[in-house]
């Protein structure tokens, strides 16, 4: 009797193996939760420090030596200018490059070379782009860009986000099924007509999602902009692409690097604004992705 029942139970060796599995699974879950908890703690830390500095005047005042009067007006304008120009520059180039790679390049060495190059560029530290921007856009093209200007910053950041944008664009274009292209060719359309009227419209939600994600990377970039000389203290608003500027992330850096607690509070408040912008961009991207997701 007892022997029979024992044979229905798991042998002790298997019980031990299963227990080891449970422990392992719990450890893996714990590792995952460390990231989640860190994010929550980080957000809480910033909110606790910064929320009391968020007043209407915080958005309408220029930076000041007196914490109570300081605001992010110049940084907000600079950020909007920079993001607008980056979008204008990087979107057409990124989409065109993605179309070339996916639809025109064939399978030759040229495509392999450019594709490999893009993967490698995506891993180049952002500060190296800053060095490039300093030498090319600020110094070499001084007559065109006006030196340490919004347009120099926008060109630098555009080069930085292009690899991300191109790779996202390629994925979106690749997701358009070949049957659509073949149907278009079958009706006598040329390659460009097919791309222009069928591939691109179908890939556009994916491309836009990728663009927004690339811009949300751009909005937090600090080091390359410090390199090209976006100033840390600016009490005016840029009025053209050749004007000097500052952005939110640089304003954050400026305030964090001061020892006084009040400036740390201002930094936290500016971080809240920065993260709010960033998270709404991410939310928009996720919404776009879900709204226009197609099952072929």
């Amino acid at each position, binding site marked *: 009797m007892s022997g029979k029942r024992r044979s229905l139970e798991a042998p002790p060796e298997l019980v031990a193996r299963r227990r080891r599995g449970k422990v392992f699974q719990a450890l893996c879950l714990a*590792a995952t939760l460390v990231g989640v908890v860190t994010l929550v703690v980080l957000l809480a830390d910033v909110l606790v420090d910064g929320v009391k500095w968020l007043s209407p005047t915080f958005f309408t005042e220029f930076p000041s030596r007196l914490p109570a009067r300081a605001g992010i007006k110049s940084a907000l304008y600079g950020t909007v200018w920079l993001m607008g120009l980056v979008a204008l520059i990087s979107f057409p180039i990124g989409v065109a490059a993605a179309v070339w790679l996916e639809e025109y390049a064939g399978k030759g060495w040229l495509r392999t070379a450019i594709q490999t190059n893009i993967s*490698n560029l995506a*891993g180049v530290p952002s500060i190296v782009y800053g060095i490039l921007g300093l030498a090319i856009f600020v110094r070499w093209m001084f007559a065109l860009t006006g030196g340490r200007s919004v347009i120099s910053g926008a060109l630098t950041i555009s080069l930085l986000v292009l690899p991300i944008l191109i790779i996202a664009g390629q994925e979106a274009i690749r997701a358009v099924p070949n049957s659509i292209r073949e149907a278009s060719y079958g009706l006598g359309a040329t390659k460009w007509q097919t791309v222009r009227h069928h591939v691109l419209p179908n890939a556009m939600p994916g491309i836009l999602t990728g663009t927004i994600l690339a811009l949300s990377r751009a909005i*937090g970039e600090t080091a390359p902009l410090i390199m090209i000389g976006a100033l840390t203290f600016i009490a005016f608003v840029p009025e053209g692409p050749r004007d000097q500027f500052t952005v939110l992330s640089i304003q954050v850096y400026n305030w964090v690097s001061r020892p006084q607690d009040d400036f740390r509070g201002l930094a936290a408040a500016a971080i809240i604004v920065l993260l709010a912008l960033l998270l709404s961009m991410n939310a928009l991207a996720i919404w776009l992705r879900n709204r226009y997701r197609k099952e072929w």
Partner: protein
Amino acid sequence: MSEPALLDPPTHSAGTGRGRGLRGARARTAKESAIGGALFAAGAVSILTTVGIIAVLVWESVAFFRRVSITEFLTGTVWTPLFVPQNFGVLPLLAGSILVALVAAVIAIPLGLGSAVYLSEFAPVRLRAWLKPILEILAGVPSVVYGYFALTFVTPILQVIVPGLDMFNALSAGIVVGIMVVPLIASLSEDAMNAVPRELRDGAYALGSTKFEVATRVVTPAALSGIVASFILAISRAIGETMAVVLAAGMTPNLTFDVRESIQTLTAYIVQVSLGDTPFGSIEYQSIFAVGLLLFVVTLVMNIFGLWFLRRYREEYA
């Protein structure tokens, strides 16, 4: 959204004579190749970017190495370019970068790999749908924000635990950089694990393996090249990380492997010089290009290795 296009006639010569049709076709061919050329030009921007980076770094570095010998630069142990006497031994900066990257790796490798295993092997579908975007957000938080977090939250806590910890220190910087690269390791490793064919898992289950054994003895070894790639790419990212390190680790070139001390990394030095009022053409100005070139070469070599490992597993299970 593109219905009219489907109705477009194949050539622009519909209803006219043969000659005009041919001319239309020729014009269209010309237009087609012009468009192809324009698209290629956009693709070539990336090549120009690489050429530009290398040209700029090498050009100014050559000017720098006319004034400071390469041997002194690569083997010197004192880095004081901003005081007299100037010393240009880059080892303290390189050691600083490596130290931060090591601390980051110690944090990020177990956390990232654990996350990847959990997401790919254990997580219920609905929990996974929450965890993935949260990790993406963690990856998207700007570096300067991590710097703030390190300085105002992590360092004060560490000072309670670790005696003799400086206000600026490599430990705090390394920890936040580690947290920053966790999502990179998690997502690349998870991709690699998901690419492991189902048959391998089913085979192991059929032989009586538990889920734990499948995860650790089948999936992880099978995904190893992708996992190794994620480690290499994450360490390369940590070496290139700038603002968090500038804020948390300080600006003290210091040849040490004591994580409690303030150090300076390659990236932080470049920021320090560009914050100051350094005239173009001065040796300090040129030195950021030499340091930048070293940084570029180190990260590029690691990235090439990492991407090579990635390609290997993709070929294996494609």
